[in-house]
């Protein structure tokens, strides 16, 4: 009696186990993907269509999507990294990637590099010689202006080959401010706190000849972020606010969005994602101009959101397969159409109306290809970004330029030291 029970129990267990084994052999492996686009329908629909296509294209893997709002995405990933429950595929902001790679969140990609030959350099995330992430697009910034406004004030329209110089740009701002028609001549976008500051303003610093860190060693910022060039930049930066040429840190987000379109700001420093709205408002009058050359060439920030594979993923082959699949020109073009971002390849650009040669936004593709400079690819960038943001805000608010830059240098170097050089 008892024996019988035991046997039947064993049999049941065996059946169950077989059943489980049987189903797992047939069922595709689930790959989780985290994305920063919660609340952004346009991006979601393109990404969902890529995932659906991928899931239909093969039977080994099924990708499932989890979306997070961009505002707090990095915190969510850090918390997950701390507690060891990262997904298989992570969406990562280009400049943050080295930090996550160094922290052991990411593993190097293993995808066919021939697929990447045609790529904008800013869309490829290299650190320590390995490719860790790759993006389907890049973003670029330009000076937004209206042809009629510049012409009416006798201001030369700059070109990619001959951008404004510091003197020209500054004089243009003064002229525009003196018309009295604008609240401010120039809107650099101080309302967008956070990583926008280093993304948008460190290129000015670099164009002056300074930088966030010594890119030879990645060990120090002394003489680079607080050298003569950087101090010159800081003083000019402060003068923008002293002379009321630009709205300061208290600008609210709404003014940032509507100020240029409503004609309250004469020119604006903005990204290509805002270009479609400006084109709608001003049509042919709208100009997208290259950044001024403050002495060391025009520079804009490169690298946007990219995909990487989590170090803890149990199925890196699948994760890599998905990323490879997503790199098709058609998807790059779809994303660009949906979001206004720059497709990462020329072939994809030609599939879109805006970025195809002669298209209204094709200037951004050139800007990105010719002037794009990635933010320092080091794990320490996260702290650099915060310190630079603080320095820019403080200087704009009247703090001593040299002291502010010195403080940023000290904090950055302390951080590098505390992290034993971040592996450099």
């Amino acid at each position, binding site marked *: 009696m008892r024996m019988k029970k035991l046997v039947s129990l064993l049999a049941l267990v065996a059946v169950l186990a077989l059943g489980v084994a049987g189903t797992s052999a047939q069922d595709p492996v689930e790959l989780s993907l985290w994305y920063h686009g919660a609340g952004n*329908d346009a991006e979601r629909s393109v990404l969902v269509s890529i995932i659906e296509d991928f899931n239909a294209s093969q039977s080994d893997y099924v990708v499932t999507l989890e979306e997070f709002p961009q*505002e*707090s995405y990095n915190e969510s990933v850090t918390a997950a990294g701390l*507690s060891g*429950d990262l997904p298989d595929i992570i969406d990562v902001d280009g400049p943050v990637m080295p930090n996550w790679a160094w922290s052991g969140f990411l593993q190097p990609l293993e995808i066919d590099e021939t697929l990447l030959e045609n790529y904008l350099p800013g869309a490829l995330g290299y650190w320590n010689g390995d490719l860790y992430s790759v993006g389907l697009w890049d973003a670029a910034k330009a000076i937004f202006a209206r042809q009629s406004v510049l012409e009416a004030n006798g201001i030369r329209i700059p070109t990619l080959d001959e951008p404004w110089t510091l003197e020209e740009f500054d004089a243009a701002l003064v002229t525009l401010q003196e018309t009295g028609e604008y609240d401010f001549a120039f809107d650099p976008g101080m309302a967008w706190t956070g990583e926008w500051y280093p993304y948008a303003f460190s290129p000015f610093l670099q164009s002056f000849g300074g930088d966030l860190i010594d890119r030879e060693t990645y060990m120090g910022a002394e003489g680079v972020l607080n050298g003569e060039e950087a101090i010159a930049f800081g003083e000019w930066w402060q003068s923008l606010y002293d002379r009321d040429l630009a709205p300061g840190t208290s600008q609210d987000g709404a003014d940032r969005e509507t100020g240029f379109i409503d004609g309250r700001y004469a020119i604006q420093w903005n990204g290509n994602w805002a270009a479609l709205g400006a084109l709608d408002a001003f049509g042919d009058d709208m100009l997208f101009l290259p950044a001024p050359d403050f002495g060391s060439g025009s520079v804009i920030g490169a690298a946007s959101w990219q995909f990487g594979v989590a170090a803890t993923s149990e199925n890196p082959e699948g994760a890599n397969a998905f990323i490879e699949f997503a790199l098709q020109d058609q998807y790059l073009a779809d994303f660009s159409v949906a979001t206004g971002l720059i497709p990462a390849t020329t072939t994809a650009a030609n599939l879109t109306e805006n970025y195809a040669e002669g298209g209204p936004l094709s200037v951004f593709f050139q800007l990105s290809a010719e002037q794009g400079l990635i933010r320092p690819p080091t794990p320490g960038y996260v702290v650099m970004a915060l310190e630079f943001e603080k320095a820019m805000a403080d200087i704009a608010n009247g703090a001593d330029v040299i002291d502010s830059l010195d403080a940023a240098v000290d904090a950055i170097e302390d951080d590098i030291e505390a992290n034993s050089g971040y592996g450099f």
Partner: protein
Amino acid sequence: MTAKTITDEQRQRNEKLDIIGRYALLIVVALIFVLPILFMIMSSFKPDDQLLRDTSSLRAFLPVGDLSLDNYDGAFDRVPLGRFIFNSVFVTLTTLGLSLIFNSMAGFAFAVLKWRGRNIILTIVIATFIIPFETIAIPLLLIVNQLPWIGLNGFEVGWLNSYHVQIIPWIADSLSIFLFYQYFRDLPYELVEAAKIDGAGFFRIYSRVFMPISGPVIATVAILKFLAMWNQFLWPLLVVRTEELRPVMLGVDYFFQLNVAWGEVMAYLSTITIPVLIFYLVLQRAFIESVASTGIKG
């Protein structure tokens, strides 16, 4: 005779003026409190461009211009609001219920019962009231990640991405314990003596004698706890991974894309504030009638 009627009339007039003056003052002060909230609600019905234009004039507080429910449509499309509200209500009310039981029991133990270690433990409890949550969030995350749980999937380690991780750490809280302690301490001890003579045990005294006459402190703790739980942000951000488990405050970030849809933000903020207002209105009588009795006897 005449003189007296005049003074009567004058006095009546003065009284009227006095009353008008009092109301005028009450109304002016009320405006200060209500205008920012009115701005939020009115803005939620306006298209973005009008909303932003109106902020430069008093029109911001008025239901004027192009009014519609479009922002609410947009906000509900962007965020799975029903789900988020359910999560917040579930987490908030569960925590609240457990919190009232656990903390009142502890308050009773500290206030009424004599046991060794009582004073030293009470002192520690009160001291922990000082610790701001932001400063212990990361160690707490690491702790809950190591805790065992037996759930539908059997035994597992780690509490992340669940309802219970949003609930259990918040049940006990030192302020609630302290409020219960103060209230119970000042209830007449004869209540205990009388119940003892009737043969009641201490737990019975707590549940049948003390709790039924503790409406005011229960209401106070309930409102404080409800507000704290409903407004949770940092903790769910750290411990919740999937959208199905997110509470309402995490939804606010959904709106801060590069181009913020301010009208939708206002619609969302108005929507998530309403349940709290309702909860307050339900409890306010009991609450106001004596936050007091906990307060004055401090």
